[in-house]
């Protein structure tokens, strides 16, 4: 492909299966942009592909999860759409997007970056881990609604947003809720680091989810 003229669009690895191609087409159609194929073999390794992706001006690159994809997601500044192994169906549009937010400005920023992908209902998931349990939880009839309302106001005050609250480990809850909510896409902000046990939520979601995952780089740490 030519990288001379950056163009908003969706790239898809042309070496991958039909499901990935179809998902990429759905995303491109939903966003109203062009779908373009890219052959990673002509660009050497994933890092080169990541640079190509960033230069292209594309909104994302759709890929299955393989070594090339892992190399790309760790390098590219552009969000990457990963299609986990378990995904074998294609929905006609992005009706519902699930966005796990940890209540940090970085995560909220990732969602803003990915805002264009949210064309239907947005379900924001917050998982209270064992060390994050609130101190107070008042009346059972009101507490969760009030808490979710405030969480939405703070981090994703966008019409059509619903906040879902869970307890436990986020890594486990994200694929569960994506399935339960029949989400068409999961948007995950991440630090682009896989070393030293980083990104358990990303690893788990990619391994377990049955829905495409848009990985949005945030707060990139110096390498």
């Amino acid at each position, binding site marked *: 492909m030519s990288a001379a003229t950056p163009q908003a669009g969706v790239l898809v690895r042309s070496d991958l299966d039909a499901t990935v191609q179809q998902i990429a087409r759905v995303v491109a159609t939903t966003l109203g942009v062009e779908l373009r194929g890219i052959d990673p073999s002509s660009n050497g390794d994933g890092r080169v592909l990541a640079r190509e992706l960033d230069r292209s001006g594309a909104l994302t690159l759709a890929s299955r999860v393989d070594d090339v994809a892992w190399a790309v997601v760790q390098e590219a500044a552009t969000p990457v759409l990963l299609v986990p192994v378990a995904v074998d169906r294609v929905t006609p549009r992005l009706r519902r997007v699930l966005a796990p937010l940890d209540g940090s*400005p970085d995560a909220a920023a990732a969602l803003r970056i990915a805002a264009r992908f949210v064309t239907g209902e947005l379900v924001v998931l917050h998982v*209270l881990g*064992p060390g994050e*349990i*609130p*101190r*107070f*939880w*008042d*009346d*059972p*009839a*009101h507490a*969760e*609604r*009030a*808490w979710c*309302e*405030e*969480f939405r*106001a*703070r*981090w994703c005050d966008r019409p059509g947003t619903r906040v*879902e*609250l*869970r*307890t436990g480990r986020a890594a486990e809850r994200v694929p569960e*809720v994506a399935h*339960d909510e029949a989400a068409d896409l999961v948007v995950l902000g991440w630090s682009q680091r896989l070393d030293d046990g980083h990104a358990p939520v990303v690893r788990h979601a990619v391994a377990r989810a049955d829905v495409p995952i848009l990985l949005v780089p945030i707060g990139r740490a110096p390498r």
Partner: protein
Amino acid sequence: MADPTVVLGRTVDVIVARITEFLATAGSGRLLAELSRAGLDVVLLTEGIDDPLPRICPVPLGGGRVHVRTLDGVRAHEITPDGPRPLPADGSAVLDGVLAEASSRGIGPALVLVVLATPGDLGLLGPGIGRCVVAALGDQHGPLPLDITRVPGDGGLRCLVEEQLLRRRRRRVPSVDPDPDWTLREPEPPPERRRVVESLTTLAAAGVATRGAAEEDRGRGMAPTHAAGLYRGRGAGSELRPLPRWTDLRVEPPPTGTIRTLDLRSGVLLREEVPAPSAALRSLRLASPVRAGVVALRAEAGAGRLHAGRVPGAAERGTRRGGSGTRHWATTPRGAAGAAALAVDERRGRDGDLRTVERIACYAVGGAAPRLGVALDGLSHAGRAGFDELLAESRRRWARRWEVVDVRIPSDPDAQRALRFALFTLWGLAPAGPVAELAVGARGATGPGYRGHVFWDADVFVLPALAAVAPDAARAMVRYRIARLGTARRRAAASGYDGARFPWESAEDGEDVTPRRARLRGRSLRVRTGALEEHVTADVAWAAAHLAEWAGTPAFLSGPARPLLIGTARYWHSRCRVDDAGRAHLDHVIGPDEYHEDVDDDVFTNGMARWNLRAAAALAERLDPTDAEPPAWRALADRLVDGLRADGGHEQFAGYDRLEPLLAREVAEPPVAADLLLGRQRVAASQLIKQPDVLMLHHLLPREAGPASLPADVEHYTPRTAHGSSLSPAISAAVLARAGRADEALGLLRTALTLDLEDLTDTTAAGLHLATAAGCVQAVLFGFLGARVERGILVLDPHLPDEWPQLEARFGLLGAHVRVEIDQGAVVLRTDRPVRVRLGDGPTTRVLDVAHLGSARAERPA
């Protein structure tokens, strides 16, 4: 001469100067009169007081006062239109007297300008000058230790005076005293904390509350103004009605940052742009505690930046707006649950590069149709008084409030300020005149949280504090319940019982508005509080009885509140089950500890019901000795299971002791929402409790619970309490203090004091937790001070933590305003009316004005 508008660059409210300097100023008499008409006070200092008095002010004065004081502080006169009038001599340093006088009108030292004429003045005036605004005439002073504004000796005083007159004439934004003991300063928060700061900087009066939202936000985000008890909608979906907005301004470009200063002393909110450009945005608001529904604002910014917004702003669909010239109005849609009208008068002006906006507005709240005429009428009266007078009378009312109700802890300024913030929050409910009733939602009117619904929080948390702070508001709260007795009777009948059954959640019409279902971690959950948390019925009765006892108004209980006690007793009489052994039970209830649902014989519920039956019986027998019901109530009360164990403590409910003996610290450091941490089922199967239940009975009804059981119950339940309810820490602090564990109590009180200030719940954005604020006041009065009223006698049993060697609490009871001063254990009581008082188990004394009561007992070991 320098530009008179920029000598000090701020507004002051009192000017102190030597009389010789003043009289040397051309036209001094007319100037004095002008200052007085502008509402400024002038204090003239003199060596000998008599000589110049006749010629000080030959023309009539206005609202501001003119004093003449000798520099030795011994003699003082007030110049009135009828001539000089001697003031009580206090003999203190002259400036101390001036500052005390200013303070009594809500004016802090930083709003007092002291004009130094000679180098010796500084020493003469004493250390208080360090807190004042100081100007030095001429250049004879040399280096001075204070931040002093130097003005020319020739005409400098006139410059200073004219600057103040001009600032008022041009409607400049007044200043506030930034004293950290009295102010809450909130720098521009990050976006996620903005709504929290809006809650914290709410101004409320007479139940109408306006959050501290930025004027230029113009309704983006949460509705800023609500009124207590004004709802829209019906049933579980009913909610506080958002009122038309009165603070909107257009500021372009908007400020990138501001600092909000909430002045607790004078009840105003100042907002200042930072970093300040040459013509910075500043605004100051007040909610009049004197005139119901009246609010006022002044704002200033660069003339090209500040534009009046479209006021009033609509907060909901169906709002009607109209008006012309400077006067505009808005009305909410009609509604069976209440409507409101807002009338606004706006004046714009200039001061050099600055645009100024002055706005006075009046809400009329209540009635099925908006009462625009009432709003317009209130606005006309307020408009005639003018902004400066509204500010002055508001300050005076606040000064009076702090004079009679306050908590002073010299060793703990943080706790002192937080307690003042709690009192400030409660005062927002105080009526400005006669009111029919007052519905106090969980967040009052400070935000839409909990939809403004009324819970037991109102009756047993807010009301007892208000009884000591603003008894009129407490009485209006009881009237809210009395007015809904009919609905409560119908509800009891619908449940197959007699008497009156009050709902767990209540709004406008008194029907139960508790949601039936709620979302819980992705699942729909049946909400059982509405059906089972029945203690609210006794709580309502207790609140009426407590108020009557505390205020010393038994006629209130035997008169208007009588049906409450009788109706609720009838309910319990029909609600109890008597077993074959003759023991009475209350089955299938939820106590304050909501971790355990559908339990039998909850100690708190049974204890409250028992008290309700006995109190109603006593009242009914007194009014009609032939009444047949009281003996049956008494008999049932005597049979009601009390849960007492052999060890002298209580079992919280039948079967509690057989649950998993889990302690709070074994799962997490309290406070913690243990139900979220462990799951509802696990918590329900354990002895972890959400908040005091048995100890809540000890708190409300020490005699009913049995004082002898307090140590055992404190010992048993304190480590099992997760404090997962925002109601928990303050009441636990009160009980622990009473039990002699004052240091431990202080830790819990600190949690409660910072619950909103530090947003410990992550939900302060939706409004302030009124019950927590009231709980903090209760903890001080009923816990650390150990105050209660028994048969018309104030009983004190203080237990202070080591960190508080001194405590002064001012509050109202028995128709009097009292001050209890504790210093190293010595207890002194001052009162403005005779009261009977007892310290601990000591003798009862009738105190006419002041009495040294003796020493508080030493803290008992746990």
